[in-house]
Protein backbone atom coordinates (compact mmCIF):
# COMPACT_ATOMS: atom_id res chain seq x y z
CA UNK A 1 0.00 0.00 0.00
CA UNK A 2 1.30 3.42 -0.90
CA UNK A 3 1.28 6.32 1.45
CA UNK A 4 -0.16 9.46 -0.02
CA UNK A 5 1.42 12.80 0.82
CA UNK A 6 -1.53 14.80 -0.36
CA UNK A 7 -3.50 16.65 2.24
CA UNK A 8 -6.21 14.40 3.59
CA UNK A 9 -9.61 15.32 2.25
CA UNK A 10 -12.17 15.91 4.97
CA UNK A 11 -14.71 13.17 5.39
CA UNK A 12 -17.83 13.73 3.39
CA UNK A 13 -20.37 15.53 5.50
CA UNK A 14 -23.74 13.86 5.89
CA UNK A 15 -26.26 16.48 6.90
CA UNK A 16 -29.23 15.86 9.06
CA UNK A 17 -32.08 14.71 6.96
CA UNK A 18 -34.60 17.44 7.16
CA UNK A 19 -37.88 18.50 5.72
CA UNK A 20 -38.54 21.86 4.22
CA UNK A 21 -37.72 23.56 1.03
CA UNK A 22 -34.18 24.63 1.84
CA UNK A 23 -31.68 21.98 0.79
CA UNK A 24 -29.49 20.57 3.50
CA UNK A 25 -26.40 21.92 1.78
CA UNK A 26 -27.73 25.44 1.88
CA UNK A 27 -28.62 25.20 5.50
CA UNK A 28 -25.18 23.83 6.23
CA UNK A 29 -23.74 26.78 4.41
CA UNK A 30 -25.77 29.12 6.57
CA UNK A 31 -24.50 27.29 9.64
CA UNK A 32 -20.93 27.99 8.62
CA UNK A 33 -21.82 31.66 8.70
CA UNK A 34 -23.27 31.48 12.13
CA UNK A 35 -26.91 31.31 11.15
CA UNK A 36 -28.71 28.34 12.58
CA UNK A 37 -31.73 27.40 10.59
CA UNK A 38 -33.64 24.32 11.44
CA UNK A 39 -37.04 22.82 11.05
CA UNK A 40 -39.46 21.70 13.68
CA UNK A 41 -39.03 18.17 12.43
CA UNK A 42 -35.28 18.21 12.69
CA UNK A 43 -35.36 19.73 16.14
CA UNK A 44 -37.94 17.25 17.30
CA UNK A 45 -36.04 14.27 15.95
CA UNK A 46 -32.77 15.59 17.30
CA UNK A 47 -34.28 15.90 20.75
CA UNK A 48 -35.91 12.54 20.99
CA UNK A 49 -33.08 10.64 19.31
CA UNK A 50 -30.72 11.89 21.99
CA UNK A 51 -32.94 11.06 24.90
CA UNK A 52 -34.13 7.53 24.24
CA UNK A 53 -35.39 6.01 27.44
CA UNK A 54 -35.11 2.22 27.35
CA UNK A 55 -37.43 -0.06 29.22
CA UNK A 56 -35.63 -1.58 32.17
CA UNK A 57 -35.91 -5.29 31.81
CA UNK A 58 -33.62 -8.13 30.84
CA UNK A 59 -34.37 -11.66 29.83
CA UNK A 60 -31.09 -13.54 29.83
CA UNK A 61 -27.32 -13.15 29.56
CA UNK A 62 -27.61 -10.37 26.96
CA UNK A 63 -29.06 -8.31 29.79
CA UNK A 64 -25.70 -8.53 31.55
CA UNK A 65 -24.08 -6.90 28.54
CA UNK A 66 -26.83 -4.32 28.53
CA UNK A 67 -26.08 -3.59 32.18
CA UNK A 68 -22.40 -3.36 31.32
CA UNK A 69 -23.26 -0.84 28.61
CA UNK A 70 -24.84 1.30 31.31
CA UNK A 71 -21.74 1.27 33.52
CA UNK A 72 -19.04 3.91 33.52
CA UNK A 73 -16.74 1.88 31.31
CA UNK A 74 -19.08 1.88 28.29
CA UNK A 75 -21.43 4.62 29.47
CA UNK A 76 -24.59 4.54 27.46
CA UNK A 77 -25.26 7.99 28.95
CA UNK A 78 -22.97 9.41 26.27
CA UNK A 79 -25.84 8.74 23.89
CA UNK A 80 -28.57 9.94 26.17
CA UNK A 81 -30.09 6.54 26.74
CA UNK A 82 -29.08 5.95 30.34
CA UNK A 83 -32.48 6.48 31.91
CA UNK A 84 -33.78 2.95 32.09
CA UNK A 85 -37.45 3.25 32.98
CA UNK A 86 -39.10 0.62 35.15
CA UNK A 87 -42.49 1.34 33.60
CA UNK A 88 -43.44 0.77 29.98
CA UNK A 89 -45.56 3.91 30.11
CA UNK A 90 -42.40 6.01 30.35
CA UNK A 91 -40.20 4.12 27.93
CA UNK A 92 -39.36 4.80 24.28
CA UNK A 93 -37.24 1.78 23.54
CA UNK A 94 -37.66 -1.90 24.28
CA UNK A 95 -34.34 -3.73 24.28
CA UNK A 96 -35.29 -7.41 24.06
CA UNK A 97 -32.08 -8.62 25.62
CA UNK A 98 -32.00 -12.37 25.73
CA UNK A 99 -33.90 -15.57 25.18
CA UNK A 100 -37.63 -15.08 24.88
CA UNK A 101 -39.26 -18.21 26.21
CA UNK A 102 -42.73 -19.07 25.05
CA UNK A 103 -43.87 -18.56 28.62
CA UNK A 104 -42.44 -15.03 28.59
CA UNK A 105 -43.46 -14.03 25.06
CA UNK A 106 -47.05 -12.93 25.86
CA UNK A 107 -45.73 -10.70 28.62
CA UNK A 108 -43.16 -9.10 26.33
CA UNK A 109 -45.90 -8.35 23.79
CA UNK A 110 -48.06 -6.95 26.57
CA UNK A 111 -45.24 -4.65 27.67
CA UNK A 112 -44.81 -3.53 24.08
CA UNK A 113 -48.50 -2.74 23.84
CA UNK A 114 -48.29 -0.71 27.02
CA UNK A 115 -45.53 1.53 25.67
CA UNK A 116 -46.74 4.79 24.16
CA UNK A 117 -45.76 5.85 20.67
CA UNK A 118 -43.28 6.69 19.34
CA UNK A 119 -41.60 3.45 20.41
CA UNK A 120 -38.81 1.38 19.05
CA UNK A 121 -37.62 -2.17 19.54
CA UNK A 122 -34.10 -3.56 19.51
CA UNK A 123 -33.69 -7.33 19.29
CA UNK A 124 -30.41 -7.90 21.10
CA UNK A 125 -28.56 -11.14 20.56
CA UNK A 126 -29.13 -14.34 18.64
CA UNK A 127 -31.97 -15.57 20.87
CA UNK A 128 -34.10 -12.47 20.56
CA UNK A 129 -33.53 -12.44 16.80
CA UNK A 130 -34.24 -16.07 15.99
CA UNK A 131 -34.13 -18.27 19.07
CA UNK A 132 -30.39 -18.64 18.66
CA UNK A 133 -28.86 -21.86 19.93
CA UNK A 134 -32.23 -22.81 21.44
CA UNK A 135 -34.16 -22.28 18.24
CA UNK A 136 -35.70 -25.75 18.03
CA UNK A 137 -36.26 -26.02 21.77
CA UNK A 138 -39.67 -26.76 23.20
CA UNK A 139 -39.97 -23.54 25.15
CA UNK A 140 -38.10 -20.91 23.14
CA UNK A 141 -39.72 -18.43 20.82
CA UNK A 142 -37.97 -18.29 17.46
CA UNK A 143 -37.49 -14.56 17.50
CA UNK A 144 -39.47 -11.74 19.03
CA UNK A 145 -40.16 -10.35 15.55
CA UNK A 146 -42.85 -12.98 15.19
CA UNK A 147 -45.07 -10.86 17.40
CA UNK A 148 -43.82 -7.28 17.43
CA UNK A 149 -42.00 -5.18 14.83
CA UNK A 150 -38.26 -4.90 15.40
CA UNK A 151 -36.33 -1.83 14.32
CA UNK A 152 -32.74 -2.86 14.98
CA UNK A 153 -31.24 -6.34 15.13
CA UNK A 154 -27.95 -6.72 17.01
CA UNK A 155 -26.34 -10.09 16.36
CA UNK A 156 -24.01 -11.73 18.83
CA UNK A 157 -24.11 -14.28 21.58
CA UNK A 158 -24.14 -12.08 23.53
CA UNK A 159 -23.28 -8.86 21.68
CA UNK A 160 -20.62 -6.80 23.37
CA UNK A 161 -21.65 -3.48 24.91
CA UNK A 162 -20.04 -1.70 21.97
CA UNK A 163 -22.38 -3.61 19.68
CA UNK A 164 -25.36 -2.45 21.70
CA UNK A 165 -24.08 1.13 21.53
CA UNK A 166 -23.66 0.75 17.77
CA UNK A 167 -27.22 -0.49 17.52
CA UNK A 168 -28.34 2.48 19.55
CA UNK A 169 -26.51 4.85 17.20
CA UNK A 170 -28.15 3.13 14.24
CA UNK A 171 -31.51 3.67 15.91
CA UNK A 172 -30.68 7.32 16.45
CA UNK A 173 -29.92 7.65 12.75
CA UNK A 174 -33.21 6.01 11.95
CA UNK A 175 -35.08 8.40 14.25
CA UNK A 176 -33.30 11.42 12.78
CA UNK A 177 -34.39 10.34 9.32
CA UNK A 178 -38.05 10.00 10.17
CA UNK A 179 -40.58 12.31 8.57
CA UNK A 180 -43.41 13.67 10.61
CA UNK A 181 -45.73 14.34 7.71
CA UNK A 182 -46.13 13.59 4.07
CA UNK A 183 -46.53 10.35 2.21
CA UNK A 184 -43.47 8.72 3.80
CA UNK A 185 -44.28 9.82 7.33
CA UNK A 186 -42.98 7.75 10.23
CA UNK A 187 -44.89 4.73 11.41
CA UNK A 188 -46.08 6.26 14.66
CA UNK A 189 -47.71 9.20 12.91
CA UNK A 190 -49.98 7.07 10.81
CA UNK A 191 -53.36 5.92 12.01
CA UNK A 192 -53.52 2.92 9.69
CA UNK A 193 -50.45 1.24 11.15
CA UNK A 194 -51.06 -0.74 14.33
CA UNK A 195 -49.47 0.29 17.56
CA UNK A 196 -50.67 -2.67 19.60
CA UNK A 197 -50.39 -6.29 18.61
CA UNK A 198 -52.35 -9.40 19.53
CA UNK A 199 -51.01 -11.15 22.59
CA UNK A 200 -50.55 -14.89 22.02
CA UNK A 201 -52.35 -17.26 24.34
CA UNK A 202 -50.91 -20.22 26.19
CA UNK A 203 -52.00 -23.33 24.33
CA UNK A 204 -51.91 -26.99 25.21
CA UNK A 205 -48.81 -27.61 23.12
CA UNK A 206 -47.57 -24.24 21.91
CA UNK A 207 -48.43 -20.59 21.82
CA UNK A 208 -51.63 -19.81 19.94
CA UNK A 209 -50.98 -18.46 17.45
CA UNK A 210 -47.29 -19.21 17.09
CA UNK A 211 -46.70 -16.04 15.10
CA UNK A 212 -48.44 -12.91 13.97
CA UNK A 213 -48.65 -13.12 10.16
CA UNK A 214 -49.30 -9.40 9.95
CA UNK A 215 -45.83 -8.82 11.35
CA UNK A 216 -43.79 -11.78 10.22
CA UNK A 217 -43.80 -14.32 7.44
CA UNK A 218 -41.38 -17.23 7.15
CA UNK A 219 -38.44 -16.73 4.84
CA UNK A 220 -38.88 -18.20 1.40
CA UNK A 221 -36.43 -20.95 0.57
CA UNK A 222 -33.94 -20.23 -2.19
CA UNK A 223 -35.47 -21.08 -5.50
CA UNK A 224 -32.36 -22.78 -6.84
Amino acid at each position, binding site marked *: MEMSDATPTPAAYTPFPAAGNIPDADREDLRRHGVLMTSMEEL*YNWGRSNSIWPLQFGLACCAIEMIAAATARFDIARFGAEIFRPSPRQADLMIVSGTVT*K*KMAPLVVRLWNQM*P*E*PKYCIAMGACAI*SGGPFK*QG*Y*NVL*KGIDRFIPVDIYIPGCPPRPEALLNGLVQLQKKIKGEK*LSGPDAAR*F*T*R*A*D*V*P*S*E*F*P*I*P*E*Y*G*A*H*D*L*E*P*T*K*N*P*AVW*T*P*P*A*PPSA
Partner: protein
Amino acid sequence: METVEQLRDRLLARFPAAKIELVTNPSAAAEHSLLIDAAHGRDIALFLRDDPTLRLDYCSNVTGIDWPDKEITDITKTTVADPAGASGATKVVEQKTTRIQPGYLEAVYHLYSMALKHGPVILRLRTANRSDAVTLPSFTPVWRSCDFQEREIYDLYGIIFECHPDLRRLLMWYEFKDHPMRKDYVEPDDYEWEPTAHGAILEKAKANRLTSAPIAGDAATPGPGSAPPATKSSNTEAKP
Protein backbone atom coordinates in the same frame (compact mmCIF):
# COMPACT_ATOMS: atom_id res chain seq x y z
CA MET B 1 -19.09 -43.59 55.86
CA GLU B 2 -20.15 -47.13 55.34
CA THR B 3 -20.14 -48.52 51.82
CA VAL B 4 -23.30 -48.60 49.83
CA GLU B 5 -23.46 -52.39 50.20
CA GLN B 6 -23.32 -52.05 53.97
CA LEU B 7 -25.94 -49.38 53.82
CA ARG B 8 -28.23 -51.57 51.76
CA ASP B 9 -27.83 -54.42 54.24
CA ARG B 10 -28.54 -52.14 57.16
CA LEU B 11 -31.63 -50.76 55.44
CA LEU B 12 -32.84 -54.26 54.68
CA ALA B 13 -32.38 -55.20 58.33
CA ARG B 14 -34.25 -52.10 59.42
CA PHE B 15 -37.05 -52.42 56.81
CA PRO B 16 -37.45 -56.14 56.16
CA ALA B 17 -40.50 -55.65 53.95
CA ALA B 18 -38.82 -53.12 51.70
CA LYS B 19 -37.38 -53.97 48.34
CA ILE B 20 -33.92 -52.44 48.05
CA GLU B 21 -31.55 -53.14 45.22
CA LEU B 22 -28.06 -51.99 44.47
CA VAL B 23 -27.70 -50.37 41.06
CA THR B 24 -24.04 -50.41 40.19
CA ASN B 25 -22.34 -47.84 38.04
CA PRO B 26 -19.64 -49.53 35.96
CA SER B 27 -17.91 -46.31 34.98
CA ALA B 28 -14.82 -44.89 36.65
CA ALA B 29 -16.94 -42.71 38.89
CA ALA B 30 -18.43 -45.86 40.43
CA GLU B 31 -21.28 -43.96 41.99
CA HIS B 32 -23.48 -46.85 42.92
CA SER B 33 -27.03 -46.13 43.88
CA LEU B 34 -29.84 -47.71 45.84
CA LEU B 35 -33.09 -48.54 44.13
CA ILE B 36 -35.82 -48.36 46.75
CA ASP B 37 -39.46 -49.11 46.36
CA ALA B 38 -42.01 -46.34 46.46
CA ALA B 39 -44.06 -47.85 49.29
CA HIS B 40 -41.22 -47.54 51.81
CA GLY B 41 -39.61 -44.50 50.24
CA ARG B 42 -40.68 -41.99 52.85
CA ASP B 43 -39.65 -44.20 55.78
CA ILE B 44 -36.28 -44.93 54.26
CA ALA B 45 -35.72 -41.23 53.52
CA LEU B 46 -36.53 -40.27 57.10
CA PHE B 47 -34.22 -42.99 58.38
CA LEU B 48 -31.37 -41.78 56.16
CA ARG B 49 -31.87 -38.23 57.39
CA ASP B 50 -32.13 -39.05 61.08
CA ASP B 51 -29.77 -41.97 61.54
CA PRO B 52 -26.92 -40.71 63.78
CA THR B 53 -24.17 -42.29 61.70
CA LEU B 54 -25.57 -41.06 58.39
CA ARG B 55 -27.35 -37.74 59.03
CA LEU B 56 -27.94 -37.12 55.34
CA ASP B 57 -29.39 -33.69 55.94
CA TYR B 58 -28.96 -32.20 52.48
CA CYS B 59 -30.52 -33.24 49.19
CA SER B 60 -28.37 -31.53 46.60
CA ASN B 61 -30.05 -32.66 43.43
CA VAL B 62 -33.15 -34.40 42.19
CA THR B 63 -33.44 -35.40 38.59
CA GLY B 64 -35.71 -37.47 36.41
CA ILE B 65 -35.06 -40.15 33.83
CA ASP B 66 -37.44 -41.54 31.27
CA TRP B 67 -36.93 -45.19 30.40
CA PRO B 68 -39.16 -46.07 27.46
CA ASP B 69 -40.36 -49.56 26.64
CA LYS B 70 -37.44 -51.71 25.59
CA GLU B 71 -37.49 -54.72 23.36
CA ILE B 72 -35.25 -57.48 24.68
CA THR B 73 -34.29 -60.52 22.67
CA ASP B 74 -33.63 -63.66 24.69
CA ILE B 75 -31.65 -66.44 23.09
CA THR B 76 -32.15 -69.87 24.57
CA LYS B 77 -29.96 -72.69 23.35
CA THR B 78 -31.33 -76.19 23.53
CA THR B 79 -29.55 -79.37 22.58
CA VAL B 80 -31.56 -81.84 20.59
CA ALA B 81 -30.61 -85.20 19.18
CA ASP B 82 -29.77 -85.21 15.51
CA PRO B 83 -32.91 -86.39 13.80
CA ALA B 84 -31.10 -87.51 10.66
CA GLY B 85 -28.83 -90.18 12.01
CA ALA B 86 -28.89 -92.39 15.01
CA SER B 87 -25.19 -91.89 15.61
CA GLY B 88 -25.88 -89.83 18.68
CA ALA B 89 -24.68 -86.54 17.24
CA THR B 90 -26.54 -83.68 18.79
CA LYS B 91 -27.44 -80.31 17.43
CA VAL B 92 -27.72 -76.99 19.22
CA VAL B 93 -30.86 -75.12 18.36
CA GLU B 94 -31.11 -71.44 19.13
CA GLN B 95 -34.48 -70.08 19.91
CA LYS B 96 -35.00 -66.36 19.94
CA THR B 97 -37.82 -64.85 21.87
CA THR B 98 -38.48 -61.17 22.13
CA ARG B 99 -40.25 -59.56 24.99
CA ILE B 100 -41.07 -55.99 25.81
CA GLN B 101 -39.62 -54.69 29.04
CA PRO B 102 -42.13 -52.10 30.14
CA GLY B 103 -40.82 -48.62 30.55
CA TYR B 104 -40.91 -46.53 33.68
CA LEU B 105 -40.02 -43.11 34.99
CA GLU B 106 -37.29 -42.70 37.53
CA ALA B 107 -36.42 -40.04 40.08
CA VAL B 108 -32.85 -39.84 41.36
CA TYR B 109 -31.92 -38.14 44.62
CA HIS B 110 -28.39 -37.16 45.62
CA LEU B 111 -27.99 -36.92 49.37
CA TYR B 112 -25.14 -35.43 51.37
CA SER B 113 -24.45 -34.85 55.02
CA MET B 114 -23.47 -31.32 55.90
CA ALA B 115 -23.06 -32.30 59.54
CA LEU B 116 -20.76 -35.26 59.00
CA LYS B 117 -19.25 -34.10 55.70
CA HIS B 118 -19.88 -37.18 53.66
CA GLY B 119 -21.86 -38.28 50.68
CA PRO B 120 -23.30 -38.68 48.24
CA VAL B 121 -25.82 -41.41 48.78
CA ILE B 122 -27.86 -41.82 45.64
CA LEU B 123 -31.46 -43.01 45.75
CA ARG B 124 -33.55 -44.12 42.82
CA LEU B 125 -37.29 -44.54 42.76
CA ARG B 126 -39.18 -45.96 39.84
CA THR B 127 -42.80 -45.66 38.82
CA ALA B 128 -44.81 -48.69 37.80
CA ASN B 129 -45.21 -47.53 34.23
CA ARG B 130 -45.11 -44.41 32.09
CA SER B 131 -48.82 -43.80 31.61
CA ASP B 132 -51.23 -44.13 34.51
CA ALA B 133 -49.22 -45.29 37.54
CA VAL B 134 -46.68 -42.48 37.75
CA THR B 135 -46.92 -41.67 41.44
CA LEU B 136 -43.92 -41.53 43.74
CA PRO B 137 -43.70 -40.28 47.31
CA SER B 138 -42.51 -36.71 47.58
CA PHE B 139 -39.40 -36.14 49.66
CA THR B 140 -40.08 -32.44 50.06
CA PRO B 141 -41.38 -32.98 53.62
CA VAL B 142 -38.03 -34.66 54.37
CA TRP B 143 -35.70 -32.29 52.50
CA ARG B 144 -37.02 -28.85 51.66
CA SER B 145 -34.57 -28.51 48.78
CA CYS B 146 -36.55 -31.09 46.81
CA ASP B 147 -39.42 -28.66 46.39
CA PHE B 148 -38.62 -26.94 43.09
CA GLN B 149 -36.72 -29.90 41.71
CA GLU B 150 -39.66 -32.23 42.15
CA ARG B 151 -41.89 -29.62 40.55
CA GLU B 152 -39.48 -29.50 37.64
CA ILE B 153 -39.60 -33.28 37.28
CA TYR B 154 -43.37 -33.18 37.42
CA ASP B 155 -43.32 -30.53 34.72
CA LEU B 156 -40.85 -32.15 32.35
CA TYR B 157 -41.38 -35.87 32.99
CA GLY B 158 -44.84 -36.15 34.48
CA ILE B 159 -44.02 -37.95 37.71
CA ILE B 160 -46.67 -37.12 40.31
CA PHE B 161 -45.15 -36.64 43.74
CA GLU B 162 -47.57 -37.61 46.45
CA CYS B 163 -47.80 -35.24 49.43
CA HIS B 164 -45.86 -32.51 47.66
CA PRO B 165 -47.09 -29.25 49.18
CA ASP B 166 -47.31 -27.32 45.91
CA LEU B 167 -47.12 -29.55 42.87
CA ARG B 168 -47.51 -27.17 39.96
CA ARG B 169 -45.63 -26.80 36.71
CA LEU B 170 -42.38 -24.93 37.22
CA LEU B 171 -40.98 -24.07 33.79
CA MET B 172 -43.86 -24.46 31.36
CA TRP B 173 -47.14 -22.61 31.57
CA TYR B 174 -50.00 -24.19 33.47
CA GLU B 175 -52.12 -24.80 30.35
CA PHE B 176 -49.36 -26.91 28.82
CA LYS B 177 -50.30 -30.56 28.48
CA ASP B 178 -47.10 -32.36 27.45
CA HIS B 179 -43.99 -33.45 29.30
CA PRO B 180 -41.17 -32.26 27.05
CA MET B 181 -38.31 -34.33 28.43
CA ARG B 182 -40.02 -37.63 27.77
CA LYS B 183 -38.52 -39.63 24.95
CA ASP B 184 -41.82 -39.78 23.09
CA TYR B 185 -42.54 -36.06 23.31
CA VAL B 186 -43.83 -34.77 19.98
CA GLU B 187 -42.60 -31.25 19.40
CA PRO B 188 -44.70 -28.69 17.53
CA ASP B 189 -44.06 -29.10 13.83
CA ASP B 190 -43.29 -25.50 12.99
CA TYR B 191 -40.08 -25.78 11.05
CA GLU B 192 -39.43 -23.19 8.39
CA TRP B 193 -36.69 -22.86 5.89
CA GLU B 194 -33.62 -21.28 7.34
CA PRO B 195 -30.03 -21.00 6.21
CA THR B 196 -28.63 -23.88 8.21
CA ALA B 197 -26.15 -26.66 7.72
CA HIS B 198 -28.41 -29.13 9.50
CA GLY B 199 -30.08 -31.22 6.82
CA ALA B 200 -32.62 -32.70 9.23
CA ILE B 201 -34.10 -29.28 9.88
CA LEU B 202 -34.37 -28.52 6.18
CA GLU B 203 -36.03 -31.87 5.56
CA LYS B 204 -38.61 -31.16 8.24
CA ALA B 205 -39.15 -27.67 6.86
CA LYS B 206 -39.66 -29.12 3.40
CA ALA B 207 -42.18 -31.68 4.61
CA ASN B 208 -43.95 -28.98 6.56
CA ARG B 209 -44.13 -26.76 3.50
CA LEU B 210 -45.59 -29.51 1.35
CA THR B 211 -48.33 -30.36 3.79
CA SER B 212 -49.28 -26.88 4.88
CA ALA B 213 -50.92 -23.98 3.13
CA PRO B 214 -48.97 -21.50 1.03
CA ILE B 215 -46.35 -19.71 3.01
CA ALA B 216 -47.83 -16.27 2.95
CA GLY B 217 -51.26 -17.55 3.96
CA ASP B 218 -49.84 -19.48 6.86
CA ALA B 219 -51.89 -17.22 9.07
CA ALA B 220 -54.52 -19.92 9.09
CA THR B 221 -55.63 -20.66 12.60
CA PRO B 222 -55.38 -18.12 15.35
CA GLY B 223 -56.12 -19.64 18.68
CA PRO B 224 -59.47 -19.40 20.36
CA GLY B 225 -60.00 -16.07 21.94
CA SER B 226 -56.95 -14.46 20.44
CA ALA B 227 -57.59 -11.18 18.80
CA PRO B 228 -57.49 -10.93 15.03
CA PRO B 229 -54.41 -9.29 13.54
CA ALA B 230 -54.59 -5.70 14.59
CA THR B 231 -55.53 -3.30 11.87
CA LYS B 232 -56.92 -0.47 13.86
CA SER B 233 -54.56 1.90 15.47
CA SER B 234 -54.53 3.19 18.96
CA ASN B 235 -51.54 5.45 18.66
CA THR B 236 -53.43 8.65 18.14
CA GLU B 237 -52.18 10.10 21.39
CA ALA B 238 -48.65 10.02 20.05
CA LYS B 239 -49.28 12.28 17.14
CA PRO B 240 -47.13 15.35 17.24
